[in-house]
């Protein structure tokens, strides 16, 4: 920008406006979740609620088996993450470091799955799960994501950058391949792994579609479904309770975001740039 003070002011106003456009909806969400139902309807809206109505949260929480939802969400997101690590690390290492017949073919298969929108093929996957008897179970939510083409892609790039000399040094140090992966490759790929972990956790914590399609009873529903159900109350939507519920869903992510903002942003950007 120019040094001209007029432009500086315009620039500043522009930046503030941007923050408003993107942050105000959340501010509204937070403030609404503390309001009485009557106060949610006042215009112009009160940005700061008249009083902090904490009971909105307990109302939301008690309107359904929210503890169950919360635990299910946690089990699914963490379970997916653990399985993904277990499958992508060895696969990425093999793709990056071994020459074998079919290396390119199988990596090609992996890349193809990367291009296929998962939501498009939910119907046959649903039928598949039904054949396995895994419908309406947490396994049905976890297994389709037990590996990640995207994770393999990222990690393979990172493993490829490790100089061959390092592996040779380790082999001369009598390290087994397993040890090389655990003691050398994984620690070196730590930034990429953290990046991927955040990416994956956020995606599956927030996921609404798969649980919606794959579950039929409360026993296996997750938090986003529970929140969506908050809307289905008779006689108009209780926006304050609904927003309180949404806040319950968002808070874990916000906490992660708060502590790892730089890392998360870098993570998402990294995944886009590579």
């Amino acid at each position, binding site marked *: 920008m120019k040094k001209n003070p007029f432009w500086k002011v315009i620039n500043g106003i522009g*930046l503030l406006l941007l923050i408003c456009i*993107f942050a105000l909806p959340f501010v509204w969400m937070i403030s609404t979740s503390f309001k009485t139902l009557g106060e949610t309807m006042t215009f112009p*809206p009160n940005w700061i609620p008249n009083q902090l109505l904490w009971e909105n949260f307990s109302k939301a929480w008690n309107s359904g088996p929210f503890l169950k939802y919360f635990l299910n969400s946690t089990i699914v997101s963490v379970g997916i993450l653990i399985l993904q690590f277990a*499958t992508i690390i060895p696969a990425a290492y093999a793709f990056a470091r071994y020459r074998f017949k079919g290396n390119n073919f199988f990596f090609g*298969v992996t890349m193809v799955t990367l291009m*296929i929108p998962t939501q498009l093929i939910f119907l046959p996957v649903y039928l598949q799960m039904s054949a396995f008897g895994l419908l309406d179970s947490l396994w049905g939510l976890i297994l389709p994501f037990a590996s990640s083409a995207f994770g393999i892609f990222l990690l393979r790039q990172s493993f490829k950058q490790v100089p061959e000399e390092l592996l040779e040094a380790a082999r001369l140090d009598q390290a087994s391949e397993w040890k090389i992966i655990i003691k050398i490759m994984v620690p070196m790929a730590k930034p990429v792994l953290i990046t991927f972990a955040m990416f994956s956790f956020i995606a599956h914590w927030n996921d609404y579609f798969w649980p919606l399609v794959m579950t039929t009873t409360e026993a296996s529903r997750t938090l986003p479904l529970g*929140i969506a159900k908050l809307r289905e109350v008779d006689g108009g939507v209780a926006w304050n309770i609904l927003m309180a519920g949404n806040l319950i869903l968002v808070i874990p*992510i916000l906490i992660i975001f708060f502590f790892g903002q730089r890392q998360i942003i870098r993570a998402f950007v990294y995944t886009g740039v590579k």
Partner: protein
Amino acid sequence: MSWIKARPYVMIFPAILVFTLFFLYPIGYMIFLSFHDWNFVSPVKEFVGFSNFTSLMEDAKFLQVLRNTFMYSGLTVFLTISISLLLALWLNKKGAMYGMVQGAIFSPHIISLVSISMLWMWIMDTDYGLLNWFLGLFGITNIPWLTDPKTSLLSLIIVAVWKGIGYYTLIFIAGLQSIPRDIYEAAALDDTNRIRTFFKLTLPMLSPTLFFLTIIGLIGSFQVFETISIMTKGGPINSTNTIVYYIYENGFRFFKIGYASTAGVILLLIIGIFTVFYFKLLGRKVHYQ
């Protein structure tokens, strides 16, 4: 086969198994189903050849769904990319303020689409919505954002653009920062003006990022579901019904599995064409080593 030879296969096996079971096989199965008529419960899947395809192509509702999908994806991607690019050029600066703005515009990206849909549903509410209240300050009154077929799809596009901009902007910023400075210095020494510098240097240097974002943007938008399911349920009068929602409805509500699968196959073909086009266009520039 010795262990050394078998090892790589053992290591990729779990991942490939998952892909086979939950991606490749389902795709095959979906193609199989698209040639059949089935209602979920009947023990017989009746082979009907291409009739699902032909009737879909004559189905005015499906054609509208396709049109909606393309309209939605095309506009969303176009708007997101152009706005993000402009924002990236603006925000690509050092300083706490710019960091904060970057954080703010990125924040919708980590929030669940469920929350975003509900939030915007309320913001776009005709009578009690924040948006109409705000526009009311300028004398524009009561736009029925989500309840009028003229504006409903546009409303969903606005939400998608709002959610996507931060991510795209940050990727563009990263792209801008990876352009070597000396190129700009050389251009400055050649007395190139800013607009020319942008079109002749910046844009070409960003083109791989641009292509990449276009393709993932399109593939991502093709599968839009959450906002539709929560905000409009495909309505009013199908104005926001897009393909994944259409498959969902046909499969889970009308139990027309063959029909739903065929719609999936058609979109898969379209995505396939896009992907091939993308790699043809970019294959020489992008090296996946």
